[in-house]
């Protein structure tokens, strides 16, 4: 990055008002959210009969969407915590965006799981009658825990930036400055404050890795502790963690590219950063590919009849288009593209990011629904339509609304928060100046 002075950095990184595109984008998201809320109210009034979930396909896109959000939230553990603990300084311009994605994804995961509940008014019963033997209870505990830590992960490093913004907007936007001041918690950058902040960030960075792994593992165990074809696997925990690695980094690349382009941050987020993220993503994809081979190849040798039917339906049958789409678009092609240096340039990376995110979403669908349609005992005594599952209009509208809501949270945070840490960038700039001879 070229040398830039304090004012230029603040000017470049300060939150900006939406342009026309931003207003249209936000309005469209709000409309989708409102339509989704109406559909959800209708679902509450009429019951889950408005969905296409029935006796056998009792988990549909709500659950696969939930698993996707949970997976995406893993980006915080990877990019922020792991890269911090391994002293990878190239993370600086990317961490804030990763933190925002993490918080948005985990909040939406919590909401999505409630949407799947037939009686959301009985939510408290999950706590009152909690059984620690049940992975559902672990999930009920870990999701709010992750929300709390993700919030703290975003908030602690923000404090110096909020104080800078308070000062910066004091004359031009006094009201906004007041809000930044309140949120900055009297941050002056004193030694004592910095000591508490540094210690807290270190604790969060250490915490979010096991919490992230727990979250992904519990999510996997929701499936693997159920004796079902395709889920009954000891591979599931690691399989989900590697899948979350892919989904998280894929989402990060996509959002980083868009923000960089819209906010003209090419000086701060360079090709070098995309190259690094590309390498991280290809590592994630290769790891995930390894676990996919474990997950689908071994049953070919050892499968009982039912597992064989299930695999056949995935590879050649009813679910083959989605299965191959998620494997080829979401995994094989990204690996091939990212192996080459040219593939790790911003635009190809953006395309790869979208491929990975869309592939990851459908991969969750492949994990959740086909298994339910292949029970050990034959499906009997139900209408023919219950042998198959395709989401209803209500399910699509509500799921689209959850996605729109996640985008809306990200958009609003990008609007009001500095997407690249200002203080950290300034400090790194100071380190680069010839007369300074200090180390971080």
């Amino acid at each position, binding site marked *: 990055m070229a040398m830039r002075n304090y004012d230029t950095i603040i000017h470049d990184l300060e939150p900006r008002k939406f342009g026309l595109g931003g207003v249209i984008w936000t309005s469209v998201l709000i409309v989708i959210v409102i339509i989704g809320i109406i559909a959800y109210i209708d679902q509450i009034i009429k019951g889950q009969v408005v969905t296409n979930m029935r006796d056998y396909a009792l988990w549909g896109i709500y659950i696969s969407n939930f698993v996707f959000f949970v997976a995406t939230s893993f980006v915080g553990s990877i990019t922020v915590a792991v890269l911090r603990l391994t002293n990878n300084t190239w993370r600086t311009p990317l961490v804030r965006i990763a933190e925002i994605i993490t918080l948005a994804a985990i909040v939406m995961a919590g909401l999505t799981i409630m949407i799947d509940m037939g009686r959301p008014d009985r939510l408290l019963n999950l706590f009152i009658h909690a059984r620690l033997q049940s992975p559902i209870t672990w999930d009920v505990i870990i999701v709010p825990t992750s929300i709390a830590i993700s919030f703290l992960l975003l908030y602690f490093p923000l404090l110096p930036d909020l104080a800078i913004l308070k000062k910066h907007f004091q004359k031009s936007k006094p009201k906004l400055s007041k809000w930044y001041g309140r949120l900055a918690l009297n*941050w002056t950058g004193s030694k004592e404050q910095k000591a508490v902040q540094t210690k807290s960030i270190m604790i969060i960075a250490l*915490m979010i890795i096991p919490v992230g792994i727990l979250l992904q593992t519990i999510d996997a165990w929701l499936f693997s502790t159920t004796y079902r074809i395709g889920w009954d696997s000891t591979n599931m925990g690691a399989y989900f963690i590697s899948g979350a690695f892919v989904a998280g980094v894929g989402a990060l690349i996509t959002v980083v590219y868009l923000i960089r382009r819209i906010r003209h941050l090419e000086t701060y987020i360079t090709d070098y950063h995309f190259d690094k993220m590309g390498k991280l993503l290809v590592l994630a994809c290769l790891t995930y590919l390894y676990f996919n081979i474990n997950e689908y190849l071994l049953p070919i040798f050892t499968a009982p009849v039912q597992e064989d039917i299930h695999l056949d339906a995935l590879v050649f049958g009813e679910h083959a288009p989605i299965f191959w789409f998620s494997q080829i678009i979401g995994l094989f092609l990204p690996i091939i593209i990212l192996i080459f240096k040219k593939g790790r340039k911003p635009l190809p990376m953006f395309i790869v990011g979208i491929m990975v995110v869309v592939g990851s979403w459908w991969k969750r669908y492949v994990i959740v629904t086909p298994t339910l349609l292949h029970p050990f005992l034959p499906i009997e005594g139900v209408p023919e339509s219950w042998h198959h599952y395709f989401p209803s209009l209500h399910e699509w509208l509500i799921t689209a609304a959850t996605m729109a809501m996640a985008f809306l949270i990200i958009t609003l945070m990008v609007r009001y928060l500095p997407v690249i840490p200002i203080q950290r960038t300034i400090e790194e700039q100071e380190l680069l100046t010839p007369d300074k001879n200090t180390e971080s």
Partner: protein
Amino acid sequence: MKGPIKFHFFIILIVGMFLSNTGFHNVNAQNPKKNKIRLKVDYVKIMNEEIYFNIKASSKIGKDNVNVANIELAIYNEIDDEEIELGTTTTNMNGESRFVISDLSTIRPDSTNTYNIGVSFNGNQSFKKASKSISFKEAHIEAKLIKKDSLNYITATLKDASKDSLISGASLTVQLERLFLPLFVGEEFYITDENGMITALLEDGIPGMDGNLNIEVVMSDNEVYGTVKDKLIAPVGTPIIDESTFDERTMWSPNNKTPLFLLIFPNLIIAGMWGLIIYLVFNLFKIYKLKN
């Protein structure tokens, strides 16, 4: 003048139709055909316990045999030409009812020591009147457990209570009381000898709760004596070891019986994580206070 005549005729016709409205109804109303009810009555006596009549009401409607539910039946003790009402009972949804009497001394036999019981239904909108009578004599079964040459046997003696005489040539069943259906002991049935007795070998190794076998000796649906049953507990079975995990801490038990390792480790993790989260929130307050 053709017109006014036609008009008057038309008015009279309409008024007539209104006035004779009820009449029309009567003409059009269907006279519903009532169905016949078939009553089945069984007399059952359990020695030293209760005596009851199992009653079942059914009807053939169309091609189907239908159980008749919720009908009131009167039970009578018939002695010569006299009928003494014992009480009433109502059929359940399966068309069944059980009328219990505490003791046979509450009813009177006729001059031949035969008890005559009548069950009648008074009819309703859907079903015709119906009645059914049964006759029976009182019999006693006395079952015993005996041990001979270290083998266990069940013996039973069948008596006609009215004459205090032994009944020979009657068919008795020895069975074990089980949850769904009884389990036969030895032969399917035994015929009483000239002493009114049967003997059935009780094999070793039959499982029972605490080693107790609930034995029943039954005379089923006898033409003269009905169904008579005697029960005894034979403490000669192999005790069933209760393998239920109901009271244990298992992965499938309710939350008050969670396995200890699942109570300790997850709670430690939860306490650790939330302890740190609270500490971090506290640090935010600390930063707020450390402004200078």
